């Protein structure tokens, strides 16, 4: 392969790229802007004091001791931002999207919940009004409500006025409860013991451990939680920008590669290809130079994006630097051969741009460039290993915020090189050397 023509072909592509201000902005500024935006969306919280609380509306139609206790518990929960409102307002705000979940405690809830606590029957309903676009928050609120309802009901049952009445009533009605005799006997023994406990302990005198100092006993969470993010370094918080810049860098490097592929179609259209083919240079030089220039531009796009992320958003390569460079170069080569594939399969610049943009968006979406693949359904997580961007994103994540060693970069590098070879092979086999 003659070096002078090869270098000239690569330099020419770089010159044309640099001369197109719109392409340069698209390649360098857009990933910075969009990467920053996605980074802010997906970043972890900087400290426990700044947890994103779920806004919850509370409608207490019961106003019983238990319902007031539930409202008080929710109001002090660090994961929730509770606000008491009337039912009409709650429904209206959820419908408008101003609130994600509203919990309605209906009239008689406390009384019924107390009875159901021991009997397990005739359970009252707790209404959850929710915005269907926030299913995840609904699940979280439901879990937290379980804790607060259990604590409130059990506390009242073991040490409250309503609990005393409920136990007395239950003992009076015990004869009419339909259950096997042996179990009925055990239930009576338990209720009698609770009644004795309630008489012995003055009302509201004991504070249960873990109850946050609220008066009264009852069932409480039997554990405390210690949270530790498993990261490359201790005290190094998760930096969502590392992932978002990997994703956006990849997206826009593929767009840059598409542009170079389309440049080749334009060269064909403008007759430039004839001049190139008329020169004494091999097909390997012509196509190799195109892949090389496309790879160089792709690498610049990715590395400039990361440089920006490092400077502005404090992204760090916590893992292997060699692994990071290896994944970045392999991903750039994949993008370069992808650009050549666009040039080979495209008929005209216009149709090629449309089809390749669609293919690229699909590839980056499935590769987890927009949103991390762990939020995908399991089957989709398994399927997306056939997408090269998945390996690039996983490889870059491993070398940046996950802080893994070079060994974790080997498979992504090999896969990306494999995709590069596949794209190049298809491109060369389908390349139209002659025009009618």
């Amino acid at each position, binding site marked *: 392969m003659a070096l002078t*023509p090869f270098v000239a072909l690569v330099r020419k592509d770089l*010159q*044309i790229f640099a001369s197109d201000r719109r392409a340069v902005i698209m390649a360098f500024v857009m990933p910075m802007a969009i990467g920053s935006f996605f980074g802010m969306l997906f970043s972890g919280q900087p400290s426990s004091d700044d947890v994103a609380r779920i806004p919850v509306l509370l409608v207490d139609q019961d106003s019983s001791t238990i319902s007031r206790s539930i409202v008080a518990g929710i109001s002090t929960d660090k994961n929730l931002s509770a606000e008491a409102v009337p039912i009409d307002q709650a429904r209206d705000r959820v419908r408008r999207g101003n609130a994600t979940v509203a919990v309605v405690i209906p009239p008689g809830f406390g009384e019924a919940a107390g009875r159901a606590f021991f009997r397990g029957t005739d359970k009252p309903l707790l209404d959850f009004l929710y915005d269907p676009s926030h299913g995840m928050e609904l699940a979280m609120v439901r879990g937290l409500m379980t804790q607060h309802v259990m604590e409130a009901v059990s506390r009242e049952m073991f040490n409250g006025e309503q609990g005393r009445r409920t136990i007395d009533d239950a003992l009076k009605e015990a004869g009419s409860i339909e259950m096997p005799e042996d179990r009925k006997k055990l239930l009576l023994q338990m209720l009698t013991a609770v009644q004795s406990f309630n008489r012995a302990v003055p009302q509201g005198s004991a504070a249960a451990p873990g109850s946050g100092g609220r008066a009264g006993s009852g069932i409480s969470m039997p554990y405390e939680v210690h949270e530790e993010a498993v990261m490359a370094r201790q005290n190094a918080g998760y930096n969502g920008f590392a992932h978002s810049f990997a994703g956006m860098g990849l997206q826009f490097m593929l767009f840059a590669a598409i542009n170079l592929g389309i440049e080749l179609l334009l060269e064909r259209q*403008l007759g*430039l290809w*004839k001049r190139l*083919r*008329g020169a004494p240079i091999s*097909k390997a030089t012509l196509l190799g130079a195109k892949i090389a220039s496309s790879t160089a531009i792709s690498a610049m796009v990715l590395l400039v994006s990361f440089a920006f992320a490092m400077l502005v958003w404090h992204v760090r390569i916590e893992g292997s630097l060699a692994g990071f460079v290896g994944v970045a170069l392999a991903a750039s080569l994949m993008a370069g051969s992808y650009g050549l594939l666009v040039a080979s399969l495209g008929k005209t610049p216009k149709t090629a741009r449309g089809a390749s943009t669609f293919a690229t968006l699909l590839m980056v979406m499935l590769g987890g460039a927009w949103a991390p693949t762990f939020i995908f359904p399991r089957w989709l997580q398994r399927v997306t290993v056939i997408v090269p961007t998945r390996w690039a994103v996983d490889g870059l994540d491993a070398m940046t915020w996950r802080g893994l060693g070079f060994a974790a970069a080997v498979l992504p590098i090999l896969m990306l090189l494999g995709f590069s070879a596949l794209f190049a092979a298809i491109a060369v086999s389908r390349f139209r050397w*002659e025009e009618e």
Partner: protein
Amino acid sequence: MLEAVHLRKTFGTLVAVDDVSLTLENGRILALLGPNGAGKTTTVSMIATIVRPDRGEIRVDGIALAGDTDAAKRKLGMVPQDLALYEELSARDNLRFFGSLYNLGGAELDRAVAAALEMVGLIDRARDRVKAFSGGMKRRLNLAAGLLHDPAILLLDEPTVGVDPQSRNAIFDNLEQLKKQGKALLYTTHYMEEAARLADRIVVIDHGKVIADDTLQGLTRGGGTLESAFLTLTGRSLRD
């Protein structure tokens, strides 16, 4: 010397060129005339090795061209019908690029670029981007791009399409100068007056076949102009 021997090329069921042979000696201009779709561009493309012939061969100084990297290709210079230039680059950068494709570099390339720009009268606009050029200037630069490596044989595919009379005249002067330097020029055109002015020999091609190969005097022997002789040979029916 350039020889095209029994060239044939088909595209699907279309026979674009059928048994075309021609010879071009150094210091001569051969005009290739023909209506639209006659096979002129395909013939030139085969000679330039851009299109591979189904049959026949191209010989340069008696040796058949073989392969993309055949050193004999350096003896050929191509000026395509299209304005095959990078609009975003300057005239100088365009020429430097095309010269590099022929392995020119350093001072040799600088000299070749300067000489080509001087010849086509664009030396003062060397640093300007091509997109700022007029049609005539682009045509002249298109010609210059084919001359950088000092080819012995120049293939010109309708090099004056769409240019003003001044630029056309300048191109003619350039071609006559190249002829005087001993270069062989193969020139395809629609314009009869261009062929009449420049060509030592005229080959008329239609439906992919050579239907006349003679001098201007030979073709107009019966009286009349080259155009009337051309219409007599190719007919008056309209072509696509």
